């Protein structure tokens, strides 16, 4: 599991995950991922284009991040999830609290 991030001039943080967000994948990135959700982080675009699988542990990581953004009066948006990941998000009925966007423009 790989994690990269960048901040734009509008203070939107884009985090890109690559790999499988299963128990092992979460263990690899969770500390760094949570560290990116500091008090100054409000709005986050989570690029999941290259995430092949989302497990219950991955869902917990995403929900925790979404709650953190909400506490900071911001929002977490998921960008372009693959079909299996989108299905997992739909099954967990998370799309109301973590919106899905098909493009960066839509996410912003």
């Amino acid at each position: 599991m790989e994690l990269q991030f960048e901040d734009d001039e509008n203070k939107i943080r884009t985090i890109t995950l690559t790999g499988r967000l299963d128990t092992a994948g979460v263990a690899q990135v969770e500390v760094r991922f949570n560290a990116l959700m500091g008090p100054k982080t409000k709005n986050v675009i989570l690029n999941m284009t290259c995430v092949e699988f989302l497990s219950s542990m991955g869902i917990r990581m995403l929900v925790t991040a979404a709650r953190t953004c909400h506490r900071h009066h911001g929002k977490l948006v998921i960008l372009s999830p693959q079909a299996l990941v989108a299905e997992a998000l739909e099954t967990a009925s998370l799309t109301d609290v973590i919106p899905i966007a098909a493009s960066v423009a839509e996410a912003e």
Partner: protein
Amino acid sequence: MTTSDEWIDDPDGTFVIGSRALSATSSPRQRTHYLLFTNGPEQGRRIEINEDPVVIGRSHEVDITLQDTGTSKRHCRVVLRNARVRVTDLGSTNGTYLDDKKLEETAILPPESFLEIGSHVLKHEFRDRAEVEKSDQISEELETAQKYVQSVLPPPMNEKGISIEWTFVPSSTLGGDSFGYHWIDDDSLALYLLDVSGHGVAAAMHSVSVLNTIRHESLPHTDFLDPQSVLTKLNDVFQMDEHGGVYFTLWYGVYDIRTRQLTYSVAGHPAALLATGQDMRQLKTKGMPIGLYPGAPYRNETAEIDEFAVLYVFSDGVFEVRTIQGADWSFGELQDKLLHLRQTEASHSGEILKLVENLTGQRKWEDDFTIFTVRFTSRTQ
């Protein structure tokens, strides 16, 4: 503080050198050679390999006896010599294999290599003894927890025109699945399956705690005939901030044998499947997993149950698997397979387990495999 030069007067009258006493906590790890059974009935058993030769075979006269017709009476010998593990085939009928190559004579067994003796596959581990002991202890605790989970699961049921059978295979690290069914009153049967996030003893114990809450109907001011009120109340009680960051998904339904109606509500759990004739309907409702968000809404849906309908309730461990070819299997593919199974009289849950085992080539599961099948065998008079 003791320095490395001091002598310490040991209470039992002997003297030890201070530096040695101190080095006990900083010495290099003591690593030991082991052979670990990776399959079959002996799976998980470890044999320590040292300078005393160990003879493995089918005979009761050898050091390690294997109940295996593919193994000769004295099959092979393993010993540690000059810090290397050596294995010698003792003229066995079927041969001894090291990493898929047949041994001609004595060979070195490198760490992480695999030794094949009959149907048994043993892995050479070179590990810290304390770490192995700790890992064994954790395995024992997992096994105890696993037995506990299994002890609270209900037996198969066949009464009032309903028969239920199930298959539950805990993952190698013990997941958080549990399920149950019980009569709320003479006519209403509650059916439920939950899956706690994460693995290990904590997830399993949380799962049993929730299961007991449901099966003993111990939520205050809750109508257990009304699924959405059960989910709403559970979400109030089991918020993850107050339960070690753990949440769970749940499928909960109530079947009324008088009206032949199934009322259900779902909290982030995969849909159950209702097979009627050649139709397969997904029974799902919108609702977040229990414990993620305070005040999350849940709602009921209702399904009419026809004669000879079959209901499948399962966890994601049944279909979130990788095939031998490395592809992710899917809910849709499971649905197709269940539709084909409709014609068989065999245990559908057991057939699905066999199918997924063949698809994945695995006998050890990364997640709990749980499915229960409810057959509505006849109309209630």
